[in-house]
């Protein structure tokens, strides 16, 4: 039992340990963060000129015609008109507006879904052998692995819409360049994510397959593919979600989909049309995401 006298003799016993000084990594990181943020936000040659204090002013100096077109928040009559147009695009088949909206938006929407579906399935199918060749199990020779990894990193670094504009040059406008662009994008995502899974598989079945005399492709087929199949399917579905979002803007460079309708209204400054396109697109993206999350949960 400690008496007050003895605790006074050893004051260090309960003393709080000295706080270690911040490491050079932490100090350098902090200074770097602040400096980088200031450089990028400042209004000069090498910054975008972002000032949070100016945001309320920007809202006051908005373009009234565009605001009215996109949101119809200024006038009650406009709002009623907008609701009528929206419902006409979806519900009322007799409406004359259906022709101007539904034909363009509806066709674009269907094409967007087609592009995303084809690109996902095609890209995933191409990815599976690449994933296996991108791992130690599938390619004991490092050359193949390094080449695939390098090419895929370059592939992933190019955004889908820039791929799309390259393919527009190669195969001219339409849905085809969109499909090819998103196929490249799918390969990038699926190969990157699935190769990690392939690297982490249980080696037992592979050894067993080799032990009973299976050829290399056969061993991959019976010992590797079944192990990575659930993850591969989940990543492919994830790629589908990303593709659907990506397919929407492809039309901007002439690669098909609802983006073409968007581009049409945008270039004619018909902001009601733009608004409907964005709304339709929002609904579809949210719906598909819900479905995909449900399916993915079942797979894993």
């Amino acid at each position, binding site marked *: 039992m400690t008496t007050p006298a003895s605790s006074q003799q*050893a*004051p*260090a*016993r309960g*003393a709080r*340990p*000295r706080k*270690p000084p911040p*490491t050079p990594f932490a100090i350098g990181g902090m200074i770097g963060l602040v400096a980088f*943020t200031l450089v*990028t*936000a400042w209004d000069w040659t*090498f*910054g*975008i*000129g*972002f000032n949070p204090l100016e945001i309320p002013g*920007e*809202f006051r100096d908005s*373009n009234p015609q*565009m*605001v009215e077109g*996109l*949101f119809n928040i200024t006038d009650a009559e406009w709002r009623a008109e907008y609701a009528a147009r929206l419902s006409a695009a979806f519900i009322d088949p007799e409406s004359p507006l259906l022709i101007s909206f539904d034909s363009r938006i509806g066709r674009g929407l*269907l*094409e967007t*879904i*087609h592009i995303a*579906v*084809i690109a996902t*399935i095609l890209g995933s199918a191409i990815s599976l052998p690449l994933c296996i060749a991108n791992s130690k199990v599938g390619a004991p020779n490092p050359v193949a692995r390094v080449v695939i990894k390098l090419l895929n*990193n*370059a592939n992933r*670094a*190019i*955004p*889908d*819409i*820039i791929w799309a*504009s*390259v393919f*527009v*040059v*190669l*195969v001219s406008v*339409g*849905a*085809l360049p969109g*499909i090819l662009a998103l196929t490249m994008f799918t390969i990038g995502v699926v190969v990157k994510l699935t190769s990690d899974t392939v690297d982490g598989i249980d080696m037992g079945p592979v050894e067993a397959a080799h032990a009973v005399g299976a050829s290399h492709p056969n061993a991959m087929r019976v010992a590797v593919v079944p192990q990575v199949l659930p993850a591969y399917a989940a990543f492919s579905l994830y790629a589908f979600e990303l593709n659907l*979002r990506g397919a*929407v*803007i492809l039309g*901007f*460079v002439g690669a098909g989909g609802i983006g073409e309708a968007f581009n049409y209204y945008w270039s004619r400054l018909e902001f009601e049309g*733009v608004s409907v396109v*964005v709304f339709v*697109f*929002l609904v579809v*993206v*949210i719906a598909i995401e819900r479905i995909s999350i449900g399916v993915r949960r079942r797979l894993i």
Partner: protein
Amino acid sequence: MSRTETPAERHVRESVRPEKPFARFRWTVTVVVLGVFLWSTLTVDAAWGRLLQAPERAWTFLVLVIENASLAPLLIALEDMWISVAIAWIATIIGVVLSFPLIFLAAYNLVPRWIVQPVRQVLNVFRAIPEIALAIAFVPFFGLDPVTAALAMGISSIGTLGKLSAEIVEDIDRGPLEAVEASGGGWLSKVRWGVLPQAMPEIAAFWLYRFEINVRVSAVLGVIGMGGIGTFVQEAMRFNDYERIGLGLVVVVVVTILIDTVSSALRRRLIAGVPVSVDAKRQQIPDGTSSP
């Protein structure tokens, strides 16, 4: 007279391979995937025939790009790439600042259910809205500008940043939280001393990851005309300026890979922490507690 069966022989006879069960789930998936694929390929208006000319055109394209290769517009391309990176960075900062308070209101181990549910719903809404839709909604206020792109990307990244960070917070060790409660700390002390020291490295690593994603997204918004390398490449494509197309693509690939490499090294460092040796640790402990 027939010999009786030995146990080993009986084992062989009985170990006939069982019949493969009918995998209904697998067949359904296969049929659905193939069906959807066929339906799409047959109904889409894609002019598949053009695929045949693609290799030839690709070759011509490549030759044109290589023939016109020059470093003359390199400075402009790098400047535009920098603008894209700046947009991505500001967007990440906006997303981080706006999502940070929401993280702790969306974690089940910190606040009651009736707060978590609505906050999560708000985050889901932000997650569902694509950057492009927000960017277009902002154009009437801010114009076709890098600032518009940064704001749109920042606000749309609130959803993912908030949701995934809240999941990191939910995975923390309960011990420190109970310790803060036991010593009479309030909710804010719990967050500051119980949650942040545990969750911060992973959350910060996730912020960096989001920055990597935003670099790609800012190139996409650039194609619509919001500035940066996307605008550079898109304009070069429109005017068939092969000198700029080739250079732009090379700059995008090199800088993006560079940023990814640096960022993932930083992320690994953040999560692994400072490598402290045992000796260094012992030196930090005051003398009174070092020997029992």
